[in-house]
């Protein structure tokens, strides 16, 4: 009698056992794990290799000394480090305002989903996928030759600015889009103009996202060698840049030059410089992550 009213009266303990062959599940899980392991192991091996190889030269002299052909033990990356800072500084000064203003225009003022917006969108995405060497060719033709800026810091900065502009525009637009509509509506309903709303509400709310995108794209520019090689930055440089039109070298180019040298001391030097470049890149990415985590979503 009571048996009949129990809903689980036909329950069989065996039902809780494995119902089907899960071999494929396990194979798939292993595939995922191996893929992940390949990525991580490669990175670790690379890091261990460059750190052990460059270890003898990971000293202060690496940063404070100028490069020297005759004397690799005393050689340093000062001119390359300063060159990178100069080039990236001007790249940021050029690319940030243009990229952010373009993104604001596209996101806040142009007709949403209109033909113009779609056209620009497709083009920007394509530009972001263009290989950096192509930007080097463009920079060589336009900035170095046509504008006669030669092999200068500003030529490199203009070229790298064009290279990262699409990424800055795309990431800024995404950050702006993440600001909810009702913040804008609230502002506009108080009699704010569209420009006041963009400047006082949307932009400040999107700043963490914009900063993250900007830092990541600048860290990409710091690591670029190909377009700069094309622009003629390969020269052996033992001085720091002193202006926009100054000659220069950068860390990736200095590394490239040293790795071409047959002598072992230069290989050690190159490894040490690679470690320095990696530290700079990791530090920038860390700052980007820190900004993103510090300002957690409030809506």
């Amino acid at each position: 009698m009571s048996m009949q009213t129990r809903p689980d009266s036909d329950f069989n303990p065996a039902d809780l056992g494995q119902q089907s062959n899960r071999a494929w599940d396990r194979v798939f899980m292993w595939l995922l794990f191996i893929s992940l392991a390949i990525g991580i192991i490669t990175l670790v091996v690379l890091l261990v290799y460059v750190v052990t190889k460059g270890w003898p030269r990971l000293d202060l002299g690496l940063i404070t000394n100028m490069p020297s052909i005759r004397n690799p033990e005393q050689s340093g990356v000062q001119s390359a480090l300063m060159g990178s800072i100069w080039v990236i500084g001007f790249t940021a000064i050029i690319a940030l305002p243009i990229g952010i203003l373009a993104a604001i225009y596209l996101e806040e003022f142009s007709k949403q989903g209109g033909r113009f917006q779609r056209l620009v969108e497709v083009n920007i995405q394509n530009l972001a996928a263009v290989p950096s060497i192509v930007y080097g060719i463009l920079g060589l033709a336009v900035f170095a030759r046509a504008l006669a800026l030669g092999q200068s810091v500003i030529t490199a900065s203009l070229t790298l600015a064009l290279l990262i502009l699409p990424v800055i525009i795309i990431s800024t637009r995404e950050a702006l889009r993440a600001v909810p509509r009702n913040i804008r509506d609230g502002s506009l309903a108080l009699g704010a103009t569209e420009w006041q709303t963009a400047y006082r509400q949307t932009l400040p709310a999107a700043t963490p996202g914009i900063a993250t995108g900007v830092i990541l794209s600048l860290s990409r520019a710091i690591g670029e060698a190909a377009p700069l090689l094309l622009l003629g930055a390969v020269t052996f440089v033992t001085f720091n840049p002193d202006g926009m039109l100054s000659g220069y070298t950068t860390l990736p180019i200095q590394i490239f030059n040293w790795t071409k040298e047959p002598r072992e001391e230069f290989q050690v030097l190159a490894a040490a410089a690679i470690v320095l470049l990696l530290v700079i890149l990791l530090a920038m990415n860390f700052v980007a992550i820190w900004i993103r985590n510090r300002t957690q979503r409030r809506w």
Partner: protein
Amino acid sequence: MNELDASIRIAESLSETRHEVSIDIPNPVFTLNGVSVYYGEYEAIRDVSLDIAQGEITAFIGPSGCGKSTLLRSFNRMNDLIVGARITGRLAYHGTDLYGPEVDPIEVRRRIGMVFQKPNVFPKSIYDNVAYGPRVNKTKGNLDDLVEESLTRAALWDEVKDNLKKSAYALSGGQQQRLVIARCIAVRPEVILMDEPCASLDPIATAKIEDLMHELAGDYTIVIVTHNMQQAARVSDRTAFFTAEVDDAGERHGRLIEYGPTRQLFSAPVDQRTEDYISGRFG
């Protein structure tokens, strides 16, 4: 022939069923004549004619999707911000066509404030939320005094006066909604539009907002959209009942069914649909 006659008779009976009881509103703030609002080709609300009385609370009630928010947003030209939205008919504010060529929507929104369904405080401090409107409008005078006065009017001052620099997100939902009302008051509007201001609030917070509305009535003209009939009955002086009608093509259009003093509309509704709705039989 017979079919045509029948459809004409149906059309006539439909048009007869609009019961605009309160046609005698002196000095109306808004006068609507045959107002329809479209999203692209879709007519979300059709042919609305009514007057909004000054200093009173007017409630828009009706089932969801009947165009209450759409109509409300046309009162301060917030629909301008939606691509494809447009309005036909005449919507006058103190006799001036709100959609006339000379009218600046920015100026309209300064005079006609709006409170939204979800409390949309800005990601700023409590003080900066209230000061935002006066700042963008470059209002003259002492900002501190204006912030205090606005928060006091919104019945929030005592709760926040020691924490003005704190983020507005630290407030409860009900406090946030009163902050939004304070923010609105700081611009010194004549009208406050409220679109389901209590939809996301608990009963105690709702009661506070309703008390506040009673406080503000008289000084401000308030139009509130609500799908809560008890709320309309509690707070409003006049009520407009809307519903969605299906046309021959199967499209739903919002229509104004009945409009009158709240007590009259709730105690003796003229239209059967109003009676069904307020007695909870549909919607």
